[in-house]
């Protein structure tokens, strides 16, 4: 079962390495990990996508909480979350393919952020399925390079009707 863990951690040298080390030492899996400072520069937000059965996820959560640098761990499972991923996709473009490439970019509301006579670099942001989908459509054109950020996630606020 895939779980998205949303962490707040001290923004300190070594914090990332402690967290990554915990996963490798105990044989837990990291599918993706993203980290950056929050509005409070002393705190970093980290989103870890991992998988395992309930017992493993419980241990991962407890072990993360035990780390001195970890302030808070929230498991998105069963909560209402918004999650997004960004990808930069560099594709080959022969002259006859350029229009097709732009059509795909348009359909997905993606952007071309760099272009050369033979290539476009496409930026896409969305949930993982959307990123997967555009990659699948662009693949026949020939992908030169692909980088994905991994998920970032945040809880949804409840809509309170007046």
């Amino acid at each position, binding site marked *: 079962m895939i779980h998205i863990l949303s962490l707040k951690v001290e923004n300190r040298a070594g914090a990332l390495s402690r967290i990554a080390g915990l996963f490798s030492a105990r044989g837990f899996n990291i599918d993706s990990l993203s980290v950056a400072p929050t509005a409070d520069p002393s705190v970093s937000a980290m989103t870890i996508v991992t998988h395992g059965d309930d017992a493993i996820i419980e241990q991962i959560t407890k072990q993360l909480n035990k780390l001195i640098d970890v*302030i808070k761990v929230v498991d998105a499972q069963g909560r209402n979350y918004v999650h997004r991923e960004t990808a930069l996709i560099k594709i080959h473009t022969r002259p006859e393919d350029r229009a097709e490439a732009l059509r795909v970019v348009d359909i997905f509301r993606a952007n071309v952020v760099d272009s050369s006579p033979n290539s476009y670099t496409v930026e896409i942001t969305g949930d993982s399925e959307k990123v997967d989908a555009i990659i699948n459509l662009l693949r026949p054109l020939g992908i030169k390079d692909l980088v994905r950020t991994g998920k970032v996630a945040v809880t949804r606020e409840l809509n309170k009707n007046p």
Partner: protein
Amino acid sequence: MKLTGSEILVECLKREGVDTVFGYPGGVVLGLYDYLYRQTHLRHVLCRHEQGAMHMAEGYARATGKVGTVLVTSGPGATNTVTGLTDALMDSVPLVVFTGQVPTQLLGNDAFQEADIIGITISCTKYNFLVKRVEDLARTIKEAYHLAASGRPGPVLIDLPKDVTFAQTEFSYPDSVYLRSYNPTIEGNKGQIKKAAKAVRQAKRPVLYTGGGVVASGASAELTRLAGLIRCPVTSTLMGLGGFSGSDPRFLGMLGMHGTYKANMAMYESDLVIAVGARFDDRVTGKVDDFVPNAKIIHIDIDPTSIRKNIRVDIPIVGDVAHVLRTLIEVLEANDEPIYVDAERAAWEARIAELDAEHPLGYTHSDEVIKPQSVVEKLYALTQGRAIVSTDVGQHQMWTAQYYHFESGRDWLTSGGLGTMGYGFPAALGAQAAHPDRLVITVSGDGSFQMNIQELATAVVNDLPVKVVILNNRYLGMVRQWQQLFYEERYSHSYLATTPDFVKVAEAYGALGLRATKPSEVEGVLLAAFRHKGPVVVDILTDPMENVYPMVPAGAANHQMVFCDPDQTPGAGLKQKDGQGAKTPPLPLTGGGARP
């Protein structure tokens, strides 16, 4: 007033109540050592190897309940602390270890004696700090001692670049520590404790299964009270021995791989296991599926990760053991109804007596060769359980756990989780440094003792009169036992021969060396050792083929114990070689060359 980093360090240790530091000087800590030379507050015990300093600090911490402090240099000095750090992490021993580091401007340059000790020790410390600015030093030290001693205790490392020890700043020591990301749960959840009380009232065959957490939390009085209140037998892990009196009739002895039959069977037959400050280690549970098939489990532990890590638990309670037990006792006493049915408890106690009679702890006595168990029994008889006893790791450790009955967990120093050969002797030195007037004994083996034998110099020079009793079987006994039982007697590299001559080694270091080769000599040499004012090494030549029993073979369940060698009880559960019984090669008691 401005102080240098070195002065701040000593001043902080003073405020933390540290009186003794175990250490070894070197290049980048020369400034610190220069200040140590000029001050009078701290006692520095000079070890002969940094690993020795680590185990000394562990022994000191375990015997006193205080944080042990170590000071070593960078590079090899720092890397030599890794085994001790891992040992302390696994056995929850509070330590603060100061390692020197190359100057900040050289960090990462592969400088002389530079090691990335922060990176190296991330996974074997509770936390570690690199102090890059002298302004951060005092607060870091305060946080380190707080982290080491609170919650589940453990080792904390502070890496001190050389320039930080020379730099100056205004000194102020914080009164308190606030770490927003660290807040151990002390009081247990009241609702869970009430559930536990209800389960206790419903139990017919309860067992208290206690571990090192009882000692760390100082909860012996509460545990004893609870056991009496609910009329419940008590078994203990290796680390928990002494947390409950070893001579109390309710005590079943240790459980697990080399536990007593009655302890393992009581667990197996129980309907309620109350786990107190123990973590269901694999050496305790045996085959997990058959561990306690009929029992509800209450698990009290300060570390949430210990709960449901290895075993399903019905009623988890996160909190400090002493606090939780006190609340549990209050909840039980608040209700006037009797807690148990007398007849049910009488039947349970009768069943345990029956189990004990079925397979009591024992061994075959001999007038010819010294049985190692008899030496531990003699030690217990002579000291009445009033000595501080440390062990190394292996057969002698298990025999000490089985045959020495501890009255206090702080009198029992052993390496449980990591199983570090070489732990025992330096740990005893640390305990002796804290308790100069007490009798401190190390029970060791001829293999283990050689792993930190150089600390004999520390013992002699610092006047630490530890008595080392070597149960010398010329083998790595536990390895040999497994090779005999599970590797068809192929004794691959477990024979150590009869070197060195431990009596001469002791004398070379300036200690007293004594030897016993016959059973009739044991009591005499032990008494002579206890009477001697200084450190003593007692070399006792024991039966080389003696095995530790009972035993749960690896992979078996705890109720499938084996009680003696396979040739003595065909079909007792151990595999024998096809078509032939296991044979015991005759070995000379002295002299080398007789390799099997």
